[in-house]
C-alpha cells in the first residue's frame, strides 16, 4: 500500500511538473534593457535577485550598444509582432508615444496599493503617467545641471565655483589669462545640447525654460532672451580648448580631474568617473549646480510596462513594478549607478555628499515648481523636436553663426519638427 501511494504521489508530482496549472502560476517577466556594462549591469542584477527572491522568473533580454537605438529597433519589431516584453527601459515622451499607440499596461492597482502618488514628485509623475494612470515606473533621477570643478585649479586664480553666469564668465576669463582651460567639454551634439539647456535655464530662468523647451512657445523661442542664450553659448565656445570636437564626456571629466581644465558642465554620471579614480567630493572635486534660480533639470530612467497576456506575465509585471519603486531597490540600485532615487522618502545615510545635495535640491525644486525635465536627455522632448534643438545648438556652437541667425534657425527647425 505504501509503495502504491508513493508511486501515486510521484506520478502526481510528475504530472504537475509537466502541466503547469494556471492557479499556481509563477510570476514571470521579460525585461528588455540596455544596461549591459559596469555599474549599470550590477544595478540590473540587484533587481533580478530581488525579483527571484519573491519567486519571480526573470527573462533577461539585454540589447547592448547604441545607447538604446538598438533596443528601440527590437522593441518596435516585438510590438508589431504582437509579442511585447513585460518591461522595457524607455523614458520621457517615448512613454507617452507608446501609451498613445495603446501598447502600455495600466499600473493603477499597484500604484494605489503602494501609494506612489505620495512619494513621487509631480514632475516625475507627469513623465510616467498617461491620462492620469501610471504606465511606467521611474527607476532613478540624474541631475543634469551640474558644474564639476577642480577647487585647486580655481584657487590658482583666486576663484570659487561661480554662482551667476556673469561670475562664470569673469572666472573663465581669469583662467584663460592664466593659461588654464576654463571649460572641459566634448564636442558631441548631445554634450553641446547639455550645456545649451543649462544656459537656457540660467539666462532665461525657469519660466522661460518651460515656455521654450517644454511648451515650445514660438514667441519664447524667437525672443531676445534666446538671443542672449546663444550669446552666452558663443562665450562658452571661447572657454573650451581647440581639441574638443568629438571628445567623449568622460575624457573631459578626466581633464578636470588632472587639473588641465577647471570645470565641466555634465550630468551626475560624471561622479562615477571621479569615484572610480578615488577622488573625494568636496576635497578633490566640487559638485555645484549651474547658476539658475533654484532650477533643477532632471533626467530619469524608467521601465514602461507593456500590455502582456497570461496570468503569470501579469503577476510578474505587477511584482516587478512594485519592486522597482520599492525603497530597498531604489536605494541599492542608485548607490550602484550613482544617481538618486526617484521617490523622495529613501533613507539618505548611504549616499555621498553630491547625491544628498541633489536629493535635497530635488525636493525643494519640486515644492517650488522649479523641477524641470531635461531636453538634451529626452525628458522634456524626444525624437524629432529634441533632434531639432540639438541640431541648432550644435551647429551654432561649432561654427561662427550669429545668435540672431541661430534663433531664426531654431524657430524654423522646431516648426518643421512638430
Amino acid at each position: 500500500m505504501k509503495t502504491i501511494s508513493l508511486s501515486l504521489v510521484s506520478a502526481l508530482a510528475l504530472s504537475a511538473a509537466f502541466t503547469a496549472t494556471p492557479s499556481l502560476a509563477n510570476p514571470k517577466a521579460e525585461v528588455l534593457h540596455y544596461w549591459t556594462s559596469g555599474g549599470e549591469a550590477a544595478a540590473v542584477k540587484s533587481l533580478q535577485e530581488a525579483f527571484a527572491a519573491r519567486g519571480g522568473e526573470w527573462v533577461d533580454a539585454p540589447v547592448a550598444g547604441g545607447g538604446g537605438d538598438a533596443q528601440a529597433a527590437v522593441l518596435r519589431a516585438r510590438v508589431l509582432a504582437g509579442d511585447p516584453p513585460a518591461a522595457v527601459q524607455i523614458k520621457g515622451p517615448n512613454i507617452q508615444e507608446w501609451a498613445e499607440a495603446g501598447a502600455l499596461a495600466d499600473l493603477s492597482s499597484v500604484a494605489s496599493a503602494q501609494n506612489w502618488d505620495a512619494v513621487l514628485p509631480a514632475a516625475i509623475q507627469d513623465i510616467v503617467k498617461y491620462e492620469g494612470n501610471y504606465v511606467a515606473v521611474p527607476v532613478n533621477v540624474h541631475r543634469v545641471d551640474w558644474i564639476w570643478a577642480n577647487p585647486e585649479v580655481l584657487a590658482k586664480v583666486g576663484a570659487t565655483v561661480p554662482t551667476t553666469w556673469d561670475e562664470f564668465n569673469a572666472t573663465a576669463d581669469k583662467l584663460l589669462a592664466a593659461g588654464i582651460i576654463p571649460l572641459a567639454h566634448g564636442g558631441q551634439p548631445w554634450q553641446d545640447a547639455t550645456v545649451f539647456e543649462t544656459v537656457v535655464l540660467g539666462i532665461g530662468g525657469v519660466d522661460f525654460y518651460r515656455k521654450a523647451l517644454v511648451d515650445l512657445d514660438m514667441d519664447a523661442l524667437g525672443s531676445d532672451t534666446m538671443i542672449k542664450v546663444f550669446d552666452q553659448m558663443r562665450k562658452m565656445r571661447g572657454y573650451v580648448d581647440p581639441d574638443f570636437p568629438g571628445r567623449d564626456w568622460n575624457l573631459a571629466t578626466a581633464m578636470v580631474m588632472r587639473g588641465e581644465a577647471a570645470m565641466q558642465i555634465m550630468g551626475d554620471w560624471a561622479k562615477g568617473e571621479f569615484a572610480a579614480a578615488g577622488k573625494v567630493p568636496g576635497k578633490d572635486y566640487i559638485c555645484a549646480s549651474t547658476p539658475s534660480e533654484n532650477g533643477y533639470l532632471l533626467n530619469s530612467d524608467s521601465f514602461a510596462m507593456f500590455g502582456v497576456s497570461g496570468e503569470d506575465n501579469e503577476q510578474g509585471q505587477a511584482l516587478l513594478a512594485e519592486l522597482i519603486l520599492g525603497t530597498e531597490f531604489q536605494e541599492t540600485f542608485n548607490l550602484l549607478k550613482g544617481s538618486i532615487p526617484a521617490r523622495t522618502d529613501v533613507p539618505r545615510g548611504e549616499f555621498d555628499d553630491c547625491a544628498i545635495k541633489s536629493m535635497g535640491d530635488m525636493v525643494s525644486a519640486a515644492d517650488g515648481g522649479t523641477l524641470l525635465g531635461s531636453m538634451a536627455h529626452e525628458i522634456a522632448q524626444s525624437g524629432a523636436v529634441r533632434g531639432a534643438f540639438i541640431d541648432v545648438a550644435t551647429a551654432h556652437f561649432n561654427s561662427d553663426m550669429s545668435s540672431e541667425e541661430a534663433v531664426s534657425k531654431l524657430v524654423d527647425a522646431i516648426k518643421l519638427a512638430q
Partner: protein
Amino acid sequence: MTRPPLKLTDRIARKLPQIVVAPSFTAILFFVYGFIIWTGYISLTKSKMLPNYNLIGFRPYERLFQMDRWSVALENLFVFGFLFIFTAIVIGCLLAILLDQKIRAEGFIRTIYLYPMAISFIITGTAWKWIMNPSLGLETVVRGWGWESFSFGWTNSETMAVYALVMAAVWQSAGFVMALFLSALRSVDQDIIKAASLDGASPWRIYLRIILPSMRPVFMSAVVILAHLAIKSFDLVVALTGGGPGYASTLPANFMYEMTFRRNEIGVGAASAMVMLATVAAIMVPYLYSELRGKKHV
C-alpha cells in the same frame, strides 16, 4: 506521328536550373525589391515612431528638403563622392602604371598597397581619427620636429572635416583601384604596344594614347564601384568624425539612420532613403544600359 511523352526525371532535369535559382530569386524579389517598394510607400506616409499606412503625399519629401541637416548631408555627398572617386582613380591609376614597369618585388609592393582594402571602414576611420587628432597625431609629431606652425586639425574643422573623410576613404580604396588597373594593363595586347614602340612612340605617349583608352571599361567599373561605396558610406563617418563638428560632415546614410532610428521620423527617413536610391539609380542605370546594349552588338 506523336512524340513520346517526356519522362518525369527528364522534365525535372530540364527545369532544374529554374528550380535551383527559384529560392534565391524569390528571396531577392521579396527582401530587396519588396522592401524597396515598402520603403517607397512609407516615404509617402506620416510614419513617426511606428509605420503608419495612411498616405499623405509628398509632405515627408518637402520636410526633408527643408531640413538644414539634409542639405548639408547631400552637399557633403557630392563633395565627398566626386573627390573620392576622382582621387582614388588618379592615385590608383598612377600606382598601377608605376608598378607595371617590371620592377623588383612587385608582388610584395602590390600586396602592401592592396591591404587597406582588407580593413573595414570602422578601423580605417578610428586609425585616421587618431592620426588627425591635433593633440595626439601627426600635428603634434611634426611640431615636435620643429615645424611649429604646422596644422592638421581637419577633423576638428567644420569646413575641412569632409576632406578628412575623403583622405581616409582614398587611402583605403586606392590600392583596390590599382589592382583593377594593373590587371587591365596586363591584358592590353602586347603586339600593339610593340608596334607602337617600333614606330618610335614614347612610353608616355603609348600610355596616354593606346593603353589608357583601351582600358575604358575598367574606368567604368571603377567609377561604379567607388560611387556606390561613396553613397552608402556610413561607418567611416561614424568612426572618423561622428558626423561632426556639429553635423558638418554627416552623409545621407547617417542622416537616414538618425531620422529613422533615433528621432522617430520613419517617414522622413524613408524619404531620404528613396532619394539615395534615386541617386544610385541615376548612376547605375545609364551604366547598365550602355553595358547591356554593348553586349548585344558583339
